[in-house]
């Protein structure tokens, strides 16, 4: 009776002091009490600290408190409470392994027993990834407490499945890749999606669900700039001013005159054939057309060819840029940002 009163008084003092302390301080006091073999005090300090809201205690302190609470409870002959503390620890951090140098075999043995029956998966995903093409994927690392079946899927905003990535067992760890495509192979629209990892029990029921929000954004590659058009200063004049046309008229006139006088010059003894004026008429018409043609601006073939070469070069560059831009327009890049995981226990 006296001992109980003393204990109660001590706990009251401790509690009074603890009220003024932070949860982390309580964890530290509980650990020291455990190390002093004062398991009751340790359990009291640790239970009080762990009862605080999640926001008041960091995950590392919470994990530390749980492992010492489980060990303290086991030494207080509260095996079920110890197992519950270890199970809670494993659900909080499925990757946790108890330090066999710190805790004796009976503690580590119970921890391993609890690990075998606690089904949980830690999901590790990069906070941001850009998928640029074939071969790129979002790596999803799974760390399981024990072997159990899991389902990994990406869900649409309405909760329906976009793509099931994995269905099967996970022992220690597994890396699943998502190539950023839906089940039909098409890239998803920009939006909010959910990466869901479901752990199932031996009876097939859902025992734990980890959900990570995925913000998916389609990113288009920048297009190449259009090549600058050929500057006017580089183009050569394609036409020369028209000539006077007198050359054609002169040549035509001289030929017509020759036809008129040739019979008298060459064959003076014969009567001249009037048919020759058909030829003279044809030459006259051709000379007039030549006169008009020469007065028109004359194309400069060399300059036309040089300008065409410049234009063709520009056109080839433009076609190349167009082809690249069309290809880039068809390419869909995905930028994926991952949010904080949310864990739901039970179905």
């Amino acid at each position, binding site marked *: 009776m006296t001992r109980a009163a003393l204990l109660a008084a001590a706990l009251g003092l401790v509690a009074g002091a603890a009220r003024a302390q932070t949860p982390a301080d309580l964890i530290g006091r509980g650990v020291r009490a455990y190390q002093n073999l004062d398991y009751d005090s340790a359990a009291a300090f640790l239970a009080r600290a762990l009862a605080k809201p999640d926001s008041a205690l960091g995950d590392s302190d919470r994990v530390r408190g749980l492992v010492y609470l489980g060990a303290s409870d086991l030494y207080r002959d509260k095996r079920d409470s110890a197992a519950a503390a270890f199970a809670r620890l494993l659900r909080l951090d499925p990757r946790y392994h108890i330090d066999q140098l710190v805790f004796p075999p009976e503690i580590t043995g119970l921890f391993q027993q609890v690990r075998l029956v606690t089904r949980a998966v830690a999901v590790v995903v990069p906070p941001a990834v850009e998928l640029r093409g074939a071969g790129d994927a979002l790596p999803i690392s799974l760390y399981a407490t024990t072997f159990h079946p899991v389902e990994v899927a990406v869900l649409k905003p309405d909760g329906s499945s976009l793509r099931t990535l994995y269905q099967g067992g996970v022992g220690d760890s597994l890396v699943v890749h998502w190539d950023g495509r839906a089940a039909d192979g098409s890239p998803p629209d920009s939006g909010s999606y959910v990466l869901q990892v479901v752990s199932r029990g031996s009876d097939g029921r859902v025992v734990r669900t980890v959900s990570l929000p995925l913000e998916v954004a389609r990113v288009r590659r920048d297009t190449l700039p259009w090549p600058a058009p050929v500057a006017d200063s580089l183009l050569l004049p394609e036409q020369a001013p028209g000539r006077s046309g007198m050359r054609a008229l002169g040549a035509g006139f001289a030929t017509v005159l020759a036809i008129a006088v040739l019979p008298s010059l060459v064959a003076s003894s014969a009567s001249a054939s009037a048919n020759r004026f058909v030829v*003279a008429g044809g030459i006259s018409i051709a000379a007039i057309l030549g006169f008009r043609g020469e007065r028109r601006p004359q194309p400069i073939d060399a300059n036309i060819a040089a300008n065409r070469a410049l234009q063709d070069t520009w056109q080839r560059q433009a076609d190349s840029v167009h082809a690249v831009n069309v290809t880039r327009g068809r390419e869909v890049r995905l930028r994926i940002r991952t949010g904080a995981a949310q864990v739901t226990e039970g179905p």
Partner: protein
Amino acid sequence: MTRLAAPLVLLLLAARPAAAQLPRYVGVDVGVSSASFQSTAPGGGEKLSGFAGVGHWRIVLRPVSIDVAYTQGRLSADTGSAVPRALVDGSVFATYRPVPWLALKAGPHVRAFAATGGTERWMLWEGRAHADAPLLDGEWQAYGELWVALASSVNVTPGSGGARGAEAGLTLKLPQSPVWARLAYAVDQMRLRNDARTESLQSVALTFGFGGR
């Protein structure tokens, strides 16, 4: 004979370097000619006319080219009682162009008038000067040609007294096309010795040609 041999040697000398070269251009003209023949003699004369077929083949071996021409037709009397006769005219010329607009030609020219009473044959060795004048962009050209017989013979007494002639015309060629048309007027006169008789032939020919490299 010596007078005939000299031009032949010149022709062969001109053709020898050309033979070592590959053809650069080959062209063929064919067409029809309206021919008018008139002979004048102290005792009278005769006039005949008719149509003839014209063929002209050219192979260019720079800087020399070879021109072969052939004309055959039939002439009928325009006045009087002239005997109808066949006209056969052929020539082979070696052509040299010292400048693009001028061509100098030399070669044999044979002309025959075949009638029921006999055949009159002229054999001429000619020298020709041919000038081209462009009318439009080098595709339409007017041309003129003068020639003179360097040596001549005929199988009619008292023999040949000389010959000369001229030709003028128009060549129309479409740009970038291997086809052309040619309209030409030609006149020549051949004289027997002592002006015993003169014979002149005038013709207007329309031909179409095709050529390529």
